[in-house]
């Protein structure tokens, strides 16, 4: 092998979109190929677990790790790649803060299994087969990774050097980060301080959003299919939930510009621990029902009526940041070890 720096990219609990986003940097991928040797990249090249195990510690210069930690296999790979990598990047929202996989922290493993293997309309499972960690067959014992009750972000299982948010990260942001890394590796250029969030802005998505903003005064929320938003006008003002006020910029406000409220994939702003709580605050501030001087009970009823139109607040406000939320997961009956039973 040449003495070029080594690049790795691995997927844990993810959709594969992050891998595609790397290819999305266009012809610059050729520069990446010029500069780096691939050391591990299961999506596009044939590498085995044993190859990585055989590398000396710190052999990989940069590892882009995407996907959340859902199974014991994800965790094992995270630990292995941490050991073999100089720079470990939590790439994309899943590795950074849990993203869509971590929404299952709103339920339990057993409920997830019941839905996936029994209750879905399209499931026909008369023998009630579910995956087991160990299965006895005549030839011996077959094993599968164990499935956790709680989905974690990468930094909840290993130390992470940098976070690159986004679902998926935007190409120009990815390239900007790769440039810094390449410059550091080849010309000993400066690297950002460890633990930094790279490839993203420091202001809210609203700052980047070109939609016209006036006074926000909401008396009813709509789901995206219920109304046709007025073009050019702030979506939140029109009653469509947009998580832009509580979300870090860096994407260029792509979603609001096509009529879909910001989903929140770039995560919370600096100094905010809990994106959902901040969004809750923002939403409560723009609901203008009820004024001082009204009867206390009437006031409560009026506000309740508005909040009734807001579907699934936890899933909406924590769509991408469940694993990094303050409370981490929901509390189910006898949470954890003895929680419900697979039917």
């Amino acid at each position, binding site marked *: 092998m040449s003495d070029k720096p080594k690049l790795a990219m691995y997927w844990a609990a993810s959709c594969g979109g992050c891998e595609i986003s790397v290819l999305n940097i266009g012809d610059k991928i050729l520069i990446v190929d010029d500069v780096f040797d691939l050391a591990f990249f299961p999506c596009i090249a044939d590498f085995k677990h044993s190859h990585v195990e055989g590398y000396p510690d710190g052999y990989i210069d940069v590892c882009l790790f995407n996907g959340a930690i859902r199974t014991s296999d994800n965790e094992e790979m995270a630990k292995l790649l941490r050991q073999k990598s100089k720079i470990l990047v939590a790439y994309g929202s899943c590795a950074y803060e849990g993203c869509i996989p971590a929404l299952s922290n709103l339920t339990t493993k057993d409920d997830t299994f019941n839905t996936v293997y029994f209750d879905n309309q399209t499931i026909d499972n008369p023998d009630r087969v579910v995956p087991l960690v160990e299965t006895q067959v005549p030839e011996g014992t077959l094993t599968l990774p164990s499935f956790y009750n709680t989905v974690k972000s990468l930094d909840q299982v290993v130390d992470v050097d940098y976070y690159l948010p986004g679902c998926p990260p935007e190409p120009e942001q990815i390239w900007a980060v790769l440039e810094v890394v390449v410059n550091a590796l080849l010309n000993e250029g400066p690297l950002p301080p460890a633990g930094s969030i790279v490839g993203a802005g420091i202001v809210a998505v609203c700052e980047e959003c070109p939609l016209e903003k006036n006074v926000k005064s909401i008396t009813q929320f709509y789901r995206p299919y219920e109304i046709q938003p007025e073009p050019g006008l702030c979506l939140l003002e029109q009653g469509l939930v947009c998580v832009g006020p509580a979300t870090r910029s860096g994407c260029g406000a792509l979603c609001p510009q096509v009529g879909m409220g910001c989903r929140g994939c770039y995560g919370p702003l600096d100094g905010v621990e809990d994106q959902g709580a901040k969004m809750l605050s923002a939403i409560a501030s723009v609901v203008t029902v009820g004024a*001082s001087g009204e009867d206390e009970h009437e006031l409560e009823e009026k506000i309740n009526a508005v909040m009734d139109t807001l579907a699934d607040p936890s899933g909406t406000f924590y769509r991408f940041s469940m694993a990094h939320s303050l409370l981490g997961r929901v509390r189910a009956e006898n949470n954890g070890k003895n929680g419900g039973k697979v039917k």
Partner: protein
Amino acid sequence: MNEQFEPVIVGFLCNWCSYRAADLAGTSRTKYAPNMRAIRVMCSGRVDPQFVLKALLEGADGVMIAGCHPGECHYVEGNIKALRRYILLKRMLKQWGIEEQRVQLVWASASEGNLLAEAVDRMTEEVRALGPLQWRETVLGGNGHKPVETAEVEAELEEVS
């Protein structure tokens, strides 16, 4: 030994009404449950939902937010904002499996020391009946964000390697 469970309740009291109500309860020597730990904030509208979640994460069994009656806010509408947040937060906490008695919003003016004392007494009993929350221990496992079953998996991994 069968000791009674003493809930820890974090109370965010507004400077202008509820904190003074607590002061009044004190100077009037009103007896009430010692379970509420008072934190003075300038307005109930200052209470960020993050404060509530953090209190629950860090070991509180309940959180009380207390402010001026609607219409009497020192900052005109701060308490209405608090009410809107609280109503939405309550819906969210329900999804998180947290009983609604654990987070309560109370209106108490500066002259209502007795009312605040009653509310603290009532809430203490309600939370006592629910039992300890112990979020880190029971929901997340011993090490904060480390989930309950990690220890088991670690043992498994050790066996494999």
